[in-house]
């Protein structure tokens, strides 16, 4: 099951990960092209965060290959990870550093220096709506503000692939709407986006494709019509309760 993409930015080929003798991600095969937004759905423990952690290189797959921008993540780990921006689920920050210091640190780690670093930091802060919080300590930020800070850090080096793990966690409706707009803008600019979410409404609002994971296996991949939440809900609940999508059950 794949999302059709002429020039795939992300390619997962039979990717799997074992934990405590059990496959938590089992032979996931997926492609994502430039400008596409893929929503990764599934119930708790379905393997969404593990899949995303493997894509960004924070976890090593036990099987299969991951290619980003045509490069193999295992063979060229450093070059490949430079193409990816990641917003982790818990939005981890260094509480003793300010927002500006976070951006400077992430920029330096990504190889940015001097005026390029400052310009990229300013642009990322503006994109995440954090400009006025530049000197605020990260430890004093709310959960939603931390999410936005981590998003700014993920966008700093203009990644070809943006990986968002539950990006709307803790966001108020205003900033949740702003996040959706940011994702759409990034996709229009050619960035491939993959996001995991529990919120089906969020998926239908911003994604052009969805993939549904259940017990580590990919049960459904397909395009979704904007706003067609009812069809997505039917598929999702069928898979969540019966472990197979409606089409497969009918067959």
């Amino acid at each position, binding site marked *: 099951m794949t999302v059709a993409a002429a020039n795939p930015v992300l390619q997962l080929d039979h990717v799997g990960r074992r934990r405590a003798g059990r496959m938590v991600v089992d032979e996931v095969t997926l492609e994502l092209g430039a400008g596409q937004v893929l929503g990764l759905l599934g119930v708790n423990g379905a393997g969404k965060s593990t899949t995303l952690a493997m894509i960004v*290189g*924070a976890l*090593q797959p036990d099987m299969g290959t991951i290619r980003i921008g045509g490069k193999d993540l295992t063979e060229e780990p450093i070059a490949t*990870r430079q193409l990816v921006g990641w917003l*982790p689920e818990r939005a981890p920050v260094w509480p003793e550093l300010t927002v500006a210091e976070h951006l400077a*640190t*992430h920029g*330096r780690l990504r190889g940015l220096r001097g005026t390029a670093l400052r310009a990229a930091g300013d642009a990322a802060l503006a994109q995440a709506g954090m400009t006025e919080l530049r000197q605020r300590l990260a430890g004093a930020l709310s959960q939603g503000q931390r999410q936005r800070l981590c998003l700014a850090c993920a966008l700093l080096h203009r990644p070809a692939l943006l990986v968002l793990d539950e990006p709307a966690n803790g966001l108020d409706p205003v900033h949740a709407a702003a996040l959706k707009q940011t994702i759409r803008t990034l996709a229009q600019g050619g960035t491939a986006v993959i996001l995991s979410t529990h919120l089906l409404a969020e998926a239908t609002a911003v994604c052009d494709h969805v993939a549904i994971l259940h017990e580590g296996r990919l049960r459904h991949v397909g395009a979704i019509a904007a706003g067609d939440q009812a069809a997505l809900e039917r598929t999702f609940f069928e898979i969540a309760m019966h472990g197979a999508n409606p089409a497969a059950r009918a067959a």
Partner: protein
Amino acid sequence: MNFIAMLRLELLRLRVRPFGWVLLALGIGWLGWNFTLMVGSFLASQVQRAGLPDSPGYVDLVAVPLLGALAQLAFLVVPLLGMSTLAGERRNGTLAVLLASGVPASRIVLGKYAALVLWLLVWLALTLAMPLSLAHATSPDWGKLAAATLGLFLMLASLSAIAVAASAFTSHPALAAVVGLLVGLGLWTLNLGAQRAGIDDGAINAIAMSTHVQNLLRGLVSSTDLLWFVLVIAACLALATRRIATDRERG
């Protein structure tokens, strides 16, 4: 350049955390008090020593004992300063972010280690400034002072490497501090029994840290002692790097 970015990050965190400053201030305060007592006793014994041939001088009676006091303090201070280097990152979730940024595990470990050693160098320099402030009024044995300073520096560098390695194996900074303290004390007191039994050579003395530090504090610089410190530091940093690298495998 990743190494420099990691070094800057860790120095920044050490600079803004009150804990490092409190430890530094308490340590310097205690050492300052000791220095005053040592100078008082040095002055009081001046007349007695004047009549003795090859009597101990300013370096033997003030500078080296002060560095010895710093060594005692280091067993506690270094594990406390180093406990969060990697355990804190893992606990925060920022270690995964660093690994996903494309920073090799070796650079993460080396950057954090170098920052810790630089911080401790400031401590050593401030301690050394006390005896040096009165050096113009005496005729110090510069060679012995240099050897003792080298010994203390190597001891601090070894304890830092142990603290970083302990921190790499857990996500609980307090546990890392306890392990760092116990390993440091264990290495120091390894040959205590042998010394009490009057055994001055043998493998147990060669392994113990106290043998090598005491030689340097006495002004004896030998390649065996230097090699011991280099091996301990290299082994601890290699262990820490290996453990951080396996984070991707373990999850």
